[in-house]
């Protein structure tokens, strides 16, 4: 729990005779390590509060009263302190402690997963007494017991360092494992019949200093010395945690978290950590195949045939109905480079803007790009104020939840949540204001204005929230903004953002789209109306066209359709060729019947994917992609942080990298995307995409934690002149990054509306051959929408549809050890306030029928006091479509009726 940025004043300390400068308040053990003096330890962990329990880090510390043995993990450096880490006394004490730790340790290293990477083993070699004098019988415990579905505990090996239990209590907030008994019989265990069901349980395996905690997916799979380590970035969600991929014999075996200061602090959520199984052990697509027609069996073909068949479809569509009859859905799981390649193929070669990486379940991309941004570190700054109007980050963006929790629980930040139902944030929020779906903008507005609580909002909670938000001495307002419910339209979130910016010019935003690289997709223009580099079609037309070496009018004329538009058009027979880039609209799109109809109607459905799914079973051509772990590239997280992902294993079968598929398809279309390698693509992005100006490989390599784009003004090197034949192409392009508001500045004004001068520049130079510099990498905010929220119907319930970490989604279901954690679809309950259940005269578990304009579902109910009256909450279930079938997509909110089923 050390905040390395907090206090920079220093103190002078002598460690082993060497004078060093330590930060004030820094622990001796940390200061020593920073100066290459390693003090052995088991219980100390730099991301948790010290407890001084294992006593391994005893050193002699003299603060003027003579040297005394002290635990270096508990003592803060003070001026003039003298530390001795290797005196006879220290060595004796450390050897003594290590001998104590070993006397009851089973020493079954030859069959222990930790053997070879075990701190106990390593420190026994480096700091141990060398032999054991213990002749008594060791403690015996039942060999591993399951403390959860994912984690096994071998209590014999445990040295009781309190790391796992501290993690569970202090970091994850799931105090489900504890010390039991006392003295020599002390052990770690769960309470009877309460398993360690934490979304973050895998971290305890990673931080265990012995082999006491092991994970079911990795257990007995490899020996550490056989593992190859590849540093990469998890793409399980958009947080972008840094990881190490461990492989052996071309097999993905384990992900471990890397301590990335700005992002994940070494933690991972279990879905991210164990989701590797999907790529390694899931049912992967390995060969391209085609279906001659809807009835025929799939036929495995060579790549060239599959690409030719695809090119024929695209060419046919272009010839018959023009570029507008080709559409691309998905791409949020691709690398930045692949997204760029596909965007260039779609918008530059094919010429369609009907491209959408989101499936109508996220936010308006122009909102994401138009808001002044905040990084995770800025959002979670000590003592700050955080307003959360978002999807449940605990369920969807696990590690962001850990960071927010840390800020609130340990760093004095205050969190105000405005949401329809209680979420993972609620337990540590200073105030959690319940706002019925659709009323968020008004509630937020009233909070920031200091108005009275709107009708139906708890006055006390509202007052507490308003007080926190009104305390401007706490620094700028940080907003975590997302879409709290799939049944509430994205326009509501847009409206919330406008209302916040109207009241608080200092507000900066962290948006919470969840799909892995959806931010990369937006940046790379894989959404309607945008081109690579955070520019709109209009603003970036000439510069991007020149960068791509095409005429400006070869780019799409106007903003294309979004996912809903594409599927609606396809269902109406207006789309000839639909390319699915890892998208599964039948499962993921709110109206799955529409999606199914669209796929059945479209003559040519091309799917690029990793796994067979509900959507690509309609595809006429299926192209297998190499996917995570088997692809190099970069990815962008929700802060706009670009980090590398790395290939650790060969792609399965004949699968190809996504960008290669795009390039090959371009060739089949007699075009050339103009790059032969990822380096080529990154260089082109740095040249062509304004927001990524200056993001060369050299810059990227300066920080393994990634680079937040756009680069701060002044730090970005001048844009290289593009390889186009216009001689003056690079006329003062280095002004671009300066115009882009640096997220760190939190300057709302520059982001809300680009300056007049810039706008004038843009329009003035639109005529000539010279590609004008786009007017900055940030697009204009979409206008504040006029929301029409229907008045509550006396008999109606307002619908809230949320997501769970473990659901019927592909990655979870393809991971053998995660799949059982998802609630079976038929058991997912509709949650109502207990008083509503009482009014309906039913108990938990009874079936209710929820009916809306579009359909009805029959599900069990569960009383939940976190759900306000007249609201029904339901966790969506991708496989059956239950829940989402109720959503009325054309309305801002959905009202349903709830009836008992006799």
């Amino acid at each position, binding site marked *: 729990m050390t905040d390395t940025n907090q206090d920079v004043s220093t103190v002078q300390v002598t460690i082993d005779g060497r004078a060093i400068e330590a930060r004030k308040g820094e622990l001796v053990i940390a200061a020593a390590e920073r100066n290459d003096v390693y003090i052995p330890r088991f219980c100390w962990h730099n991301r948790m509060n010290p*407890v*001084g*329990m*294992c*006593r*391994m880090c*005893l050193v002699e510390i003299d603060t003027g009263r003579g040297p*005394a*043995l002290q*635990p270096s993990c*508990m*003592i803060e450096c003070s001026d003039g302190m003298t530390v001795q880490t290797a005196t006879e*006394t220290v060595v*004796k*004490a450390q050897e*003594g*402690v290590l*001998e*104590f*730790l070993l*006397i*009851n340790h089973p020493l079954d290293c030859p069959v222990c997963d930790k053997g070879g990477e075990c701190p106990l083993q390593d420190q026994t070699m480096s700091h141990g007494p060398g032999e054991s*004098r*213990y002749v*008594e019988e060791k403690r015996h415990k039942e060999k591993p017991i399951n403390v959860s579905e994912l984690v096994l505990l071998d209590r014999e090996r445990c*040295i*009781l360092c309190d790391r796992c239990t501290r993690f569970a209590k202090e970091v994850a907030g799931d105090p489900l494992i*504890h*010390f039991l*008994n*006392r*003295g*020599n*019989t*002390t052990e770690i265990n769960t309470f009877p019949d309460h398993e360690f069901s934490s979304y973050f349980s895998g971290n305890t395996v990673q931080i265990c200093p012995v082999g006491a905690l092991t994970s079911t997916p990795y257990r007995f799979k490899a020996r550490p010395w056989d593992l190859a380590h590849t540093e990469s970035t998890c793409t399980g969600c958009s947080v972008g945690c840094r990881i190490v991929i461990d492989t052996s014999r071309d097999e993905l075996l384990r992900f471990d978290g890397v301590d990335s200061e700005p992002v994940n602090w070494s933690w991972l959520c279990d879905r991210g950590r164990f989701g590797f199984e999907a790529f390694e052990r899931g049912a992967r697509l390995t060969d391209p195949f085609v279906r001659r027609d809807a009835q025929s069996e799939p036929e495995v073909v060579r790549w060239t045939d599959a690409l030719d068949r695809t090119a024929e479809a695209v060419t046919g569509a272009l010839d018959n109905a023009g570029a507008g009859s080709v559409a691309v859905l998905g791409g949020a799981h691709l690398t930045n480079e692949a997204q760029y390649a596909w965007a260039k193929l779609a918008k530059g070669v094919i010429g369609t803007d009907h491209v959408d990486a989101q499936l109508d379940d996220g936010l308006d991309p122009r909102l994401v790009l138009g808001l002044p941004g905040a990084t995770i570190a800025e959002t979670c700054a000590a003592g700050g104020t955080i307003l959360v109007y978002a999807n449940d980050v605990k369920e969807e963006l696990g590690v962001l939840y850990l960071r927010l929790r840390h800020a609130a629980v340990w760093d004095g930040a205050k969190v105000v949540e405005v949401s329809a139902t209680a979420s993972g944030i609620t337990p540590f929020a200073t105030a959690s204001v319940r706002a019925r779906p659709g009323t968020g903008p008004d509630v937020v507005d009233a909070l920031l204005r200091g108005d009275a609580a709107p009708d139906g909002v708890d006055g006390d909670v509202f007052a507490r929230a308003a007080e926190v938000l009104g305390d401007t001495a706490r620094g700028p307002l940080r907003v975590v903004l997302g879409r709290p419910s799939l049944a509430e339209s994205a326009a509501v979130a847009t409206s919330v953002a406008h209302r916040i910016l109207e009241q608080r010019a200092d507000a900066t935003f962290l948006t919470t789209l969840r799909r892995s690289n959806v931010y990369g997709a937006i940046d790379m223009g894989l959404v309607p109306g945008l081109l690579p580099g955070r520019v709109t079609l209009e603003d970036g037309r000439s510069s991007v066209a020149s960068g791509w070496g095409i005429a400006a009018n070869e780019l799409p004329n106007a903003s294309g359709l979004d996912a809903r538009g594409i599927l609606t058009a396809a269902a109406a027979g207006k789309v000839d060729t639909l390319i699915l880039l890892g998208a599964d609209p039948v499962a993921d799109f709110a109206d799955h019947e529409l999606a199914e109809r669209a796929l059945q109607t479209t003559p040519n459905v091309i799917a690029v994917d990793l796994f067979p799914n509900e959507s690509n079973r309609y595809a006429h051509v299926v192209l297998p992609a190499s996917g995570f772990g088997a692809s190099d590239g970069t990815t962008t997280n929700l802060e706009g942080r670009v980090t590398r992902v790395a290939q650790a294993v060969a792609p399965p079968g004949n699968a190809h990298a996504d960008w290669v598929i795009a390039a090959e398809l371009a060739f089949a279309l007699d075009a050339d995307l103009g790059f032969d390698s990822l380096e080529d693509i990154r260089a082109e992005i740095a040249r062509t995409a304004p927001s990524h100006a200056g993001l060369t490989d050299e810059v990227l390599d300066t920080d393994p934690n990634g680079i937040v784009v756009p680069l701060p003004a002044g730090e970005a090197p001048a844009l290289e002149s593009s390889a186009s034949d216009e001689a003056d192409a690079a006329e003062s392009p280095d002004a671009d990054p300066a115009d882009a508001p640096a997220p760190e500045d939190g300057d709302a004004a520059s982001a809300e509306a680009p300056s007049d001068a810039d706008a004038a520049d843009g329009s003035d130079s639109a005529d000539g051959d010279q590609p004008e510099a786009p007017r900055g990498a940030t697009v204009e905010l979409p206008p504040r929408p006029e929301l029409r929220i229907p008045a509550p119907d006396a008999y109606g319930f307002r619908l809230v549809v949320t997501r769970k970490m473990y659901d019927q989604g592909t990655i979870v279901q393809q991971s053998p050890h995660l799949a059982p954690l998802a609630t079976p679809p038929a058991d997912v309950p509709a949650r109502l306030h207990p008083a509503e259940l009482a009014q309906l005269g039913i108990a938990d578990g009874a079936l209710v029928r929820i009916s809306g304009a579009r359909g009805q579902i029959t599900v069990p109910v569960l009383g939940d006091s976190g759900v306000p009256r007249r609201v029904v909450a339901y966790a969506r279930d991708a496989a059956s479509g239950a829940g989402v079938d109720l959503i009325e997509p054309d309305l801002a909110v959905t009202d349903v009726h709830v009836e008992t089923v006799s």
Partner: protein
Amino acid sequence: MSDTSPDRIPQIVTGRLAAHDDAHTIARYEATGGYAGLRAALELAPDDVTAQVKEASLLGRGGAGFPAGVKWGFCPPGVWPRYLVVNGDESEPGTYKDRILMERDPHQLIEGILIACYAIGCAQAFLYCRGEMALAHERLGAALNEAYAAGYIGKNILGTDYSIDVVLHWGAGAYIVGEETALIESLEGNRGMPRLKPPFFPAAKGLYLQPTVVNNVETLSNLPWIMTNGAEAFHALGAETSRGTRLFAVSGHVENPGVHEVEFGTTTFRDLIYGHCGGIREGRDLKAFVPGGASSPWFFEEHLDLPLETKAVGNAGSMLGSGAIVVMDSETDVVKASRTLVRFFAVESCGKCTPCREGTTWMERILDRIIAGQGRASDVDLLLDVCDNISPELTWPPKQTTICPLGPSAPPSVASIVRRFPEEFERYLGTSFEVTVPMKGAAYVPKPDTAAAGASGSSGESPS
């Protein structure tokens, strides 16, 4: 109760309970001058009460012997709320003086609590009573109810503007909770495990991380008398820094075991054991005695004339600690006696830090093996080296590799007998043995060669 104390020594804390069987009732308590001390204290400014207690030089009776008035002054000024926590978790083997005070004169304790709270400036006190003391709990509960009803506790007590609440908390049966930071953890509802000092010095960061004074039952029970009779009268008793009277719980091989209130600092061990307690049972010889609880280095015949005074006992290499004196006669098997003491600490180790959790059990196992006749010549040295790894160099006062003093409480008995009675180990081992581990505690001395070498001769020496 012994009634043999000389007339000139007032029985400050046990007088009432010795004289009356119903001393635990408020009626008897008030009839015998009860709550006069509180009334006297409320007449004074809080700081003046503290000054009185300082002047009386009342040392803490829990074991460490720190001056109570000084301890109260450690609370950082201006930080509120602050709490008084009463340590009634008396559970060291042989210690039962607080139990008698809680069972038989609970109002005296309550009055002491109220005086202390007034002096410190807290409105909330917690009385932590050991879980096994059912009668004490019952009597304290009844007495608190009586005191509330009589207006001694509660809002605006005795018509003043001072309000105070006292909460009675029942322990769950762990010796370690007698350690003040573990007691605070337990009181907060957590496992009773000690906190690290620094930063968790109770006076600064105690209960609920607020300034907290932790006082022993006997310490507080002295306050009513001091307030009634004056600091001077208290200070007139005793010697050196050890003033007033003190309770000693004597057990073991004496004719008349029990709690004895004696003048602090002037009475000698001989007075106590041979006078108050009637000497060794069946007229046998003294072999050794534990002077201040199970964790103190043992004393022997040559220490009998030491006064029961903190500094003198400390100089001789042991401590008065919690006032538990265990007497062993010539028939005692000291190896087995030591095993019993070590086993206590092994069982009561909380398990938090490694040396105590693993080391005390290992010591017990080695002693078990030796007693079972399966010891090796190297085992005594091994045993002492394990001690050394818990309490480096076996100094006194002990150094420690542990968080709290529980672990270092196990080695003293072992070191005492290895130094004093090596032949008893040899009898079990069937062989002589060599010791390489330093034992730097002053009490760890071989038997004096001449009868002339008395208590004073051994004190302060540091054999190596």
